[in-house]
């Protein structure tokens, strides 16, 4: 695997839309060619090289390419946009849409990632060592197709509206989550190891949420369905089981109505 190191040398005044920072876009290119790729600052399109130093060179394919992003990229959006393979490591914090629409490969953000990380993600692994913003693994604005595959791990806390319209895949939050979890979801699994606030599973059609800590306010649309011993992400414990959202439509499988499941650790 070949490695490309990009280092922020000239931080943008406005937010920078860097939708070319992915193993797919870099594959087969030299440092000089990568520096020629486009970025947008506001409504001005310029080259990557204006903002970043590029060293090393990419592998022949995305799978053979690793990108390390150094320096202050707090105002850079779309890192890892649509990546399908390879690796991307962001050493600091980044702005919105990290790993959005990714379909494969591994992306690691060592700091925080702002809103819309993993938007409509289909595959691959996205790890955020700090905190994640709002709309993690959610659908794009207006869309009904959220995260459908792959895995997101957040070691810190997550913001609100995570897993909105989630269809599949797995999301683990080691810390706490803000309001609105898996709104409108039709599949997938979300594990919150810390506390959740409220509106957990609102209008949820299908899918599963596990909460290890507390839930401030339960949704009235979730109905108790007993207690159950489960092993979740390596932790064996007793959970209170709820099904819902009773106010939402549900599919039938073999004559049985399929509800979304909410498990809260006792």
């Amino acid at each position, binding site marked *: 695997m070949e490695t490309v190191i990009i280092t922020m040398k000239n931080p943008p005044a406005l937010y920078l839309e860097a939708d070319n920072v992915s193993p797919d876009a870099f594959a087969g290119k030299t440092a000089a060619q990568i520096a020629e790729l486009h970025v947008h600052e506001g409504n001005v399109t310029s080259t990557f090289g204006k903002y970043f130093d590029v060293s090393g060179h990419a592998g022949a394919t995305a799978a053979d390419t690793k990108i390390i992003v150094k320096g202050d990229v707090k105002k850079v959006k779309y890192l890892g946009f649509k990546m399908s393979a390879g690796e991307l490591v962001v050493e600091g914090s980044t702005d919105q849409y990290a790993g959005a629409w990714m379909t494969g490969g591994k992306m690691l953000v060592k700091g925080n990632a702002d809103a819309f990380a993993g938007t409509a993600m289909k595959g691959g692994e996205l790890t955020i060592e700090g905190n994640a913003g709002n709309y993690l693994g959610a*659908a*794009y*604005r*207006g*869309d*009904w197709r959220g995260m459908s595959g792959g895995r997101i791990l957040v070691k810190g806390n997550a913001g609100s509206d995570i897993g909105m319209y989630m269809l599949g895949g797995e999301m683990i939050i080691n810390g706490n989550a803000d309001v609105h979890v898996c709104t409108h979801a039709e599949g997938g699994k979300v594990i919150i190891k810390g506390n959740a606030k409220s509106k957990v599973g609102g209008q949820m059609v299908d899918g599963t949420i596990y909460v290890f800590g507390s839930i401030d306010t339960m949704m009235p649309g979730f109905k108790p369905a007993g207690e159950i011993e489960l092993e979740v992400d390596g932790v064996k414990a007793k959970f209170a089981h709820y099904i819902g959202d009773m106010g939402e*439509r549900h599919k039938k499988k073999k004559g049985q109505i399929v509800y979304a499941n909410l498990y809260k650790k006792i």
Partner: protein
Amino acid sequence: MSEYIIKNGHVFDPVQGIKGDKKDIAIKDGKIVDKVGSGAKVIDATGKTVMAGAVEIHAHIAGPKVNMGRIYRPEDKLFTCTPTKGMERMGGGNSIPTTFKTGYEYAKMGYTTAMEAAMPPLFSRHVHEEIRDTPIIDEGAFPVFGNNWFVMEYLKNKEIENTAAYIAWLIRVTKGYAVKVVNPGGTEAWAWGLNCLSVNDPVPYFDITPAEIITGLIEANEYLGLPHSLHIHPNNLGNPGCYETTLDTLKLAEGFKAKNKFGREQVMHLTHSQFHSYGGTNWGDFESKAKEVTDYVNSHKNITIDTGNVTLDETTTMTADGPFEHHLTGLNNLKWANIDVELETGSGVVPYIYSPNISVCAIQWAIGLEIPLMMKDPMRCYITTDHPNAGPFTRYPRVIKWLMSAKAREAQVNAFKHKDKVLSQTSIGSLDREISLYELAQMTRAGPAKSLGLASMCGGLKPGMDADVAVYNFNPDKPVANPDDIELAFSRCAHVFKSGVEVVTNGEIVSNGHKRTLWVNVKVKDNPQVMRDINEKFLKYYSMTQANYEALGHHFVPNPYTLEVDATQV
């Protein structure tokens, strides 16, 4: 104005009966002429196809429901935006493009005239503002009448003259073009929690049937002698077995004859006939009834139709058929928007994905192609996608490919997940007809222009007509190596002229032209009763005053082209 001569192209012009002969087309002062001076700019069309600018007879491209789609579907613009480039302003959207992108995309495909298929009269100002902001193409808009309180009240008492006077008033104040009917009575019935699924289901309160609304409006339309006929989206759209309602609707036109000075011969235009040609009793035994519908239309010369081809895309459905959209959101569980338009109409919007992996969608695709392939007279059957309902208009080149190449159809049938079901429920597999370029020119130019009453102005290349000309990179002398070449050629024109101005060169916009709004100014005898009724309804029911209703003047219709109709002597 500049003079042009388009030399050596293979010309296809049904108006003059030219079937691919090499001819020069001369343009001067915005018109097609016999000859031009030696200083005329020469366009070399050797090895290319030359046709008149195409005419869109039915698309939803301007107005509140289109904009509702744009507003509530930001995801339609995702990854489809194009920045400012040369003459082009920024645009975006796939199934519901921005106004600018709408104009550019039509022009690049060789379209120079388009009709907005459903204008809610109350929001005509909004429609005209969007039309104004859609560059290049001439546009008109059809106000909807099928659920209008005035119309239902007058027709209940068989007052044709009053209906006609009301239509004349409404078309004049809304700067409309034709009489459109959508699910007659059904949208109003839905306000009462009901629908009209046959032509005999009475409308609650008004106690009138769709059949009475349809025949009354045909009579009023011919009384006035409007350029276009009644333009109808019948009851029971999109349901298995709906073809029977369609045939019942078509039969209502029997006995009526066109009466107008515009050369129009039909009294009814059945729109998006694909959606109205379904057999079966449910989605499991869903089947094509394209043969039954086209057999009827083939033998009745006072009817024209358009296709409404399903293009197998993700799109946005939108119609004044409010109850249908509510039904649709129940089927696909996607987001739904609904608009009520006071005394006049309503509408709904729901996104839809025509998936090639779903048998119903694949059968719909087949029906949309069966209809034009079964129609004997291409002058009476026009290609549409009922944009954006069955697919975006930007897919016309692909529809043309399917119509012109049996091989392309076969490849698509083989790609369907439920191929056997498509072949058993439709006859697409046994149709080997391939539409010729001449027939294509009939279906997309001369035919719709004649149906709209614009035959003397556009849709042909006869000297004296507007110089709307499209030159395609398609050599009719050469065999088509790959059907995709057809799609490519019809996607981007080599040259397009709109009223004598070159607007597209090598697929790029080079001028925004002189876009016009087409509308019909029909004069009728003074009718104090209708004027009093209008005044009363505004005072009693409308949320706005009459003074704020009219789409007038420079702001809303800055560059009008008015078709004058005098019905005072009837």
